[in-house]
């Protein structure tokens, strides 16, 4: 009797310790965000003195000011526009290529596929230098198109890899049936392959969307004019210009972080899947 009681207490004790450990780390993960939102609701006068987590009065007008005066509204729409354009671009371009690499025969296909895979492995730090030169030459610098094309390229290799792996495992019967019905190759890609690939497309969409929304350095070197900048660059510009306007900066940070957190919470199933798949790849 005594021993079972001993083991039971010991087990409960260990469980409590484990939860304390997990919970304390979880709090450090959330706390900075809570503090960010809390700071965004204080005023210029109170923010430096009021260290309460829940401010005495909520100044939601900071969000209005950040959106209008700080210019984050414009940058928010830019970020939305760049993210959707790049993701749509990547989906079309990479699924076409992945389908061809998986199903169609043409000379040099292995070599081309190998080229895309090699790009995933070779790090080129500072590749933004020649990219800047090239975009200048093509008159694509400081344009939305230039940025979108660059970002499509960034997501291309991994997306092709994920999609090709999926297509390789996909049964051929449905495509054969479609071909017998007189469907063209493009028709099969659009009507058969893409709808079947929905689960992996979800992973591709989410990872690329996160990546574009959070991207900083290419946007920094490509855009000179503030009305074209996405949120991330606008934030550092704002911080440089209005170093003391912390409530507005915090509101801007919240505007930037909130959509990504919402998307993450809704889609976390796919993100976990993507990370573990990606890890197996690497």
């Amino acid at each position, binding site marked *: 009797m005594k021993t079972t009681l001993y083991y039971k207490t010991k087990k409960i004790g260990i469980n409590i310790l484990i939860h304390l450990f997990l919970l304390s780390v979880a709090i450090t993960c959330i706390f900075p965000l809570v503090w960010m939102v809390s700071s965004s609701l204080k005023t210029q006068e109170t923010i430096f003195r009021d260290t309460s987590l829940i401010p005495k009065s909520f100044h939601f007008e900071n969000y209005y000011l950040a959106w209008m005066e700080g210019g984050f509204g414009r940058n928010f729409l830019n970020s939305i526009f760049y993210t959707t354009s790049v993701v749509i671009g990547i989906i079309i371009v990479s699924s076409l290529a992945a389908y061809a690499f998986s199903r169609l025969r043409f000379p040099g296909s292995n070599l081309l596929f190998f080229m895309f895979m090699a790009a995933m492995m070779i790090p080129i730090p500072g590749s933004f230098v020649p990219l800047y030169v090239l975009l200048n030459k093509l008159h694509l610098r400081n344009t939305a198109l230039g940025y979108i094309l660059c970002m499509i390229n960034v997501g*291309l290799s991994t997306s092709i890899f994920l999609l090709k792996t999926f297509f390789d495992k996909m049964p051929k019967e449905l495509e054969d049936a479609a071909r017998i019905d007189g469907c063209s190759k493009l028709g099969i890609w659009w009507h058969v392959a893409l709808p079947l690939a929905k689960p992996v497309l979800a992973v591709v969409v989410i990872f690329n969307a996160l990546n574009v929304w959070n991207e900083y350095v290419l946007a920094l070197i490509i855009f000179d004019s503030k009305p074209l900048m996405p949120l991330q660059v606008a*934030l550092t510009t704002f911080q440089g210009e209005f170093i003391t306007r912390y409530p507005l900066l915090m509101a801007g940070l919240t505007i930037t972080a909130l959509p990504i957190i919402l998307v993450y919470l809704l889609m976390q199933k796919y993100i976990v899947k993507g990370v573990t798949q990606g890890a197996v790849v690497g």
Partner: protein
Amino acid sequence: MRLKSSLENYIFVLPAVLIFVIFYVIPFIRVFQLGLYEWDGILPTKIFVGLDNFKEILTDKIWWQSMWQAGYITLIALTLQNAVAFLLAWACDREIRLKNFYRVIFFIPPVLSEVVVGLVWQWILDGNYGLLNHWLIHLGLPNLARNWLSDPNTALTTVAIVHSWKGFGWGFLIFLAGLQTIPRELYEASRVDGANAWHAFKNVTIPLMIPVAVLVAILTILGTMQAFVLIIAMTGGGPAYHTQVPVLRILASMRGSSRFGYACAQGISFGVILMAISFIQYRFSKHARQT
């Protein structure tokens, strides 16, 4: 007929190849070419200087300082960040309540942008108005309060810890996935053999997790050595170069001093070092898998 079919198939890969060649292959080749020139990025004339840029790198003190600093951040990420990640994964790899809650929370920092994370932490760590110093003073520890990010003694370590905070979620998810592939029977078997929890951990968990640990280590090294946006947001590389890292130097050579050739040479040298590191790691992991 065959030829027509091949041509038709090329249409599928054409957009991808076009974008890839223009935005990856050409810049890749141009890096090596530009590295041999002295050029401000604007003037039509470039001055050929051969390997002078590379020779200059050898004696560029700030460059090597930034390299060591990136190494220091990487060391902290490898030890602190991955130890925390592994412990959390190990703690979650059992029948406990709130398991999914923890898993969701731990991956919040990785999905946030480096700019957001950097600016929020900069605000918390601010020397005059930051929350951390405020708490330290109220807890009766005013000696510990300092200008975390503008004191040369603490800036780099502070940045490294925030970087680890942002990144441990990746390691956690990969470790957890790895732990979950270990068959439960192995634990049962070791318990039947009379092994206690520690022995099971040492003889079952650790050996089976080595390949996963190597993978996490590679990802950590390659990711951390090249991290720099967080630093831009937190310190901008200061105080006085104390948080400079290689990619930040490349950016400074290009934008600050308009030396495009030198920036490319720096990029090549750094890329070669990274390739060497991952090659050694790859050999090491192959070796670890065989034994």
